[in-house]
């Protein structure tokens, strides 16, 4: 490797945050100079982030843990970034998801936001770099700042929508700030008790200190804050409205990433900051969390059943998926944790895929109420094919990745004897199957009335016998939206086949040895 590349490669833990951030600023500046430069800047920012992430993924797979000291200041005084196998995996997922959605959303972003498109690109890249920083950082206060960078960009991104979007964004802001502030209060308790902000350093100090009521309080505050941020069941209220009314290009990336990164932070705090005994020894906290998740799965699934439009239904499925991961992690055994961590990756991919498919439908049909989906298999066969694959992944059908993480979650639940959680997981699969097959049925058998006027009414009576179906002209989404969608659908299958390797190489080393 030549010396310049060597120099760069040492800095990849920080480049993954700084490169997108600085190029995001360049994208915003392009808005004043020449608007057509905004997209290349944003693209370049996320691409360099992805390259840095893959570079770290390869390095950590060889058993290396990357620690980067900001400006050479050693912890506990300086800020450190620490990348292990699992965080490298999540970083790669974040950057890949963001990049694919950026390419797919270009056309709709330029059309929806016109002169504000550079601002949208810039906010989008800030949002992603905030998330990447949250995953990479080892400093709990730095984590708060990056959390707020990601959240503030998210509020603005949602607020750029029309009609009800600003009001939904404001409600999200209030709820999100309560969550972030609870976390900050938790940081205050930790800092007062230990005098340190570095996760590894705090973990050592807490080990020596033993049980301490201040730390228990800090733990409760941090977890409460993160539950609000990840839209876990009783505090999920902000999510459905915010994601339904946000522009499609925004919803895609946000639904795929925000909640997952919050869950990652919860897992990281429990596994590598607080003593494991605090979280799992009494069993009270862990049991309460698993039951909360169980109720959340049922509540989210039934609310999804009650929805009349596709995108809104999917937002409730996001709430259900969050409950899977929270419950699986708090089972406290290796299978459950593996399932939760694997599901972070798989859920990011399948949520992006399904929301992108809906965005394509909405771009073509202009609406997504279930009655607007008629005849879609004929007019948009490729988008619907991708939708079927992502639907199968969300239900959890074998060749797709969703099956494998669900398998781990269920076996973890059985191992822990949490039958309520196991039943909730299985019921959620059935309800998801009902939800998706309802959509497939409408899109496959029913014929849109307005396209055919009078003629279709004659066919409608015998359309169940199949030969009555008139053939519709194809009206697929534009190619720049279709290719990323097909890539994501194939990724869902590829992730399923690679499950064994991912678990062995990246997830297993990240779970501490004392978790059995």
């Amino acid at each position, binding site marked *: 490797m030549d010396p310049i590349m060597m120099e760069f490669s040492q800095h990849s833990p920080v480049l993954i945050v700084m490169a997108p951030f600085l190029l995001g600023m360049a994208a915003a500046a392009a808005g004043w100079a020449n608007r057509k430069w905004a997209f290349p800047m944003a693209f370049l920012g996320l691409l360099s982030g992805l390259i840095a992430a893959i570079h770290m993924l390869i390095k950590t797979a060889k058993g290396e843990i990357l620690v980067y000291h900001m400006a050479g200041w050693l912890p506990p005084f300086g800020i450190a970034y620490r990348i292990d196998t699992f965080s490298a995996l999540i970083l790669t997922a974040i950057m890949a998801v963001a990049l694919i959605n950026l390419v797919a959303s270009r056309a709709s972003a330029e059309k929806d936001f016109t002169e504000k498109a550079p601002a949208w690109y810039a906010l989008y890249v800030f949002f992603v770099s905030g998330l990447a920083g949250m995953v990479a950082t080892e400093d709990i*206060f730095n984590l708060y*700042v990056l959390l707020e960078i990601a959240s503030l960009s998210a509020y*603005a991104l949602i*607020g750029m929508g029309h009609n009800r979007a600003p*009001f939904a964004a404001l409600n999200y802001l*209030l709820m999100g700030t309560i969550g972030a502030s609870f976390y*900050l209060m938790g940081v*205050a308790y930790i*800092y007062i008790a230990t005098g340190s902000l570095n996760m590894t350093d705090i973990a050592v100090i807490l080990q020596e200190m033993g049980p301490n009521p201040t730390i228990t309080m800090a733990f409760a505050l941090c977890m409460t804050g993160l539950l609000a941020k990840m839209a876990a069941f009783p505090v999920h209220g902000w999510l459905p409205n915010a994601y339904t009314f946000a522009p499609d290009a925004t919803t895609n990336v946000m639904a795929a990433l925000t909640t997952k990164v919050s869950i990652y932070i919860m897992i990281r705090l429990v596994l590598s900051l607080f003593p494991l005994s605090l979280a799992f020894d009494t069993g009270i906290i862990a049991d309460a969390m698993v039951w909360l998740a169980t109720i959340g799965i049922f509540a989210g699934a039934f609310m999804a059943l009650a929805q009349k439009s596709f995108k809104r239904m999917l937002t409730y499925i996001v709430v259900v998926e969050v409950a899977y991961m929270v419950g699986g992690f708090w089972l406290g055994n290796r299978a459950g944790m593996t399932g939760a961590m694997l599901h972070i990756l798989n859920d990011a991919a399948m949520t992006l895929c399904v929301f992108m498919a809906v965005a394509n439908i909405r771009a073509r049909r202009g609406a997504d109420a279930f009655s607007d989906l008629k005849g879609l298999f004929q007019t948009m066969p490729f988008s619907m094919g991708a939708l079927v694959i992502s639907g199968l992944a969300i239900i959890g059908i074998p060749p797709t990745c969703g099956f494998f993480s669900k398998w781990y979650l269920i076996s973890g639940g059985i191992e822990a004897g949490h039958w309520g959680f196991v039943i909730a997981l299985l019921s959620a699969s059935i309800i998801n199957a009902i939800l998706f097959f309802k959509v497939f049925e409408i899109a496959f058998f029913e014929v849109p009335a307005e396209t055919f006027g009078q003629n279709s009414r004659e066919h409608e009576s015998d359309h169940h016998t199949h030969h009555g179906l008139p053939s519709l002209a194809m009206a697929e989404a534009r190619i720049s939206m279709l290719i990323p969608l097909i890539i994501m659908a194939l990724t869902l299958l590829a992730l399923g086949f690679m499950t064994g390797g991912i678990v062995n190489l990246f997830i297993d080393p990240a779970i501490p040895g004392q978790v059995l």
Partner: protein
Amino acid sequence: MDAIPYFIGKYNYWGCIFLFFLGMYAMISKTNLIKKIIGLNIFQTSIILFFISASFKHDATLPILMEEHKGAIDPVMYLNPLPHVLMLTAIVVAVATLGVALTLALKVYRIYGTLEEDEINHAIQSH
């Protein structure tokens, strides 16, 4: 445990906790969006005060080397500057949040012509 010193001796923390819940109460139960945003600001300020009052020390000074100290440095004489630095950042975050919140409230007002939450909900339902 003696109750009176417990409450009086830690009055600064009780003050912060009071502001914390006051702010949260306003954010949850007020219907006017501006009052909610004021609650948000009180809420965030309470945490800033919490950090600052935790770092306070009697008879201590700023961690700056002065001429008259002439080399003798005793850590006991100085305040810990780190919480202040952290809160400087937190203030910036709070200001940014306030700015975004007010902008969104302005956008809401342009759409619905009101800042009362129940009237907005009514407008959404009747739409």
